[in-house]
């Protein structure tokens, strides 16, 4: 290995290390791939709520079916991350129905797609049995 090769390698390692450290200390997810490793890094309260969003579709004959976020090209966390935007613009749910129909050509046609948020309470670290389900965004054909 030449002296230059060695120096370039040391510089590359140092540069990535500095970027990664900066990303961890002051960056956010948009800094990927040197953003902070914040998987499960937020502290959920000992008394609070656990929420999970899910998609529900309604077919022309009135049947409801659970639509997995993956079936409209999104992951659940992506769906939840986009919740404010989808609530403000329910027409985007219509576009997701378009994605669903393109990806699953043999699936029944949907006349409605809604986002339900399922909430369970946690009191002093203990999960409570009762569950609340609320629709936060709805699109109808």
């Amino acid at each position, binding site marked *: 290995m030449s002296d230059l090769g060695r120096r370039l390698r040391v510089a590359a390692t140092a540069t990535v290390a500095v970027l990664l450290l900066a990303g961890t200390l002051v960056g956010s*997810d948009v800094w990927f791939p040197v953003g*902070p490793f914040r998987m499960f*890094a937020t502290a959920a*309260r*000992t008394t609070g709520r*656990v929420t999970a969003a899910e998609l529900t579709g309604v077919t022309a004959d009135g049947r409801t079916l659970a639509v997995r976020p993956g079936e409209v090209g*999104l992951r659940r*966390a*992506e769906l939840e991350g986009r919740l404010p935007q989808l609530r403000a613009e329910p027409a985007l749910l219509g576009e997701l129905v378009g994605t669903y129909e393109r*990806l699953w050509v043999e699936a029944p046609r949907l006349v409605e797609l809604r986002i339900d948020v399922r909430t369970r309470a946690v009191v002093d670290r203990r999960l409570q049995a009762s569950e609340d389900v609320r629709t936060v965004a709805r699109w109808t054909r």
Partner: protein
Amino acid sequence: MTSVLGVKPGSFRLVSRRERGGWLFPPVAKGRVAALRVLLYLFVPVDVLLTTGWVRQHGDVPTELYAPLAIGRLLTLPTPTPLLVDGVLVALLACALVAATGRLPRLAGTAVAVLYLEWMVIAFSYGKVDHDRFAFLVALAVLPTVGRARLGDSTADGRAGWAVRNIQLAVVATYVLAAVAKYRFGGGLEWLDSTTLLRAVVRRGTALADPLAEWPPLLHAAQYGVVALELASPLLLVRGRVGRAALWAAAAFHAVTFATITIIFLPHVLCLAAFLPLERAAATLRSGARHLAPRQLLVGADVAR
């Protein structure tokens, strides 16, 4: 001329740190790089087609939901469309398969690194970024720098050492900085006493994990365990028994995480292989095959008779 001790004058001298290679350039067998190439480049098709097959569907998602990463804006990368996503997919698969054979290690390897980074930009520009890719991206970036390397080649090489060391450092950094992120985003030490794992179990728990939700002290203690494991991860870099124990602990941690909340951090887990003497495994396999060959011939002869 020999001295009274029978040693040639000048045969002992101080070996400088640079000559030994230094900590960043440990002499590592090229065979380990060759084995890592096979493992990681063959994982690329598994990843893009199976384990993260959802990325491909991002080409079909409404463009209004595209929220580019900083790197996407900086390099003015195009908004994903079905054509772009399929184009990247095909090119990535082709380059990864070539690179896995060990041919064109620099060209094909660099192409894989660039295309996989673009694949990740497509993956994570819709509001959710995964944090299991850093070591894998580092691995894809450094593997081409070693040049040619054959499986089982025990020739020690500083370039191979630098590549392997960087993958190892990236793995350790992921753990340690994950603990730092918990401090930053989890209200300092508050994270330790939070209910983050309970929340994860409620949202993603398997049948194995669901009973844990009913037993809060265990999940509470597990949070201390997770941070302890992350902070202790530099022990992976220690040679011998300590390093091996740290590697087993890391593997066990990922196995339990997968069994309970179906999160595996697969690209990161594969990079743990950089801590294993893979060059020896390849040599053992090869010698095993050599020993097997005559017996196979004998069996063949028996059958023929």
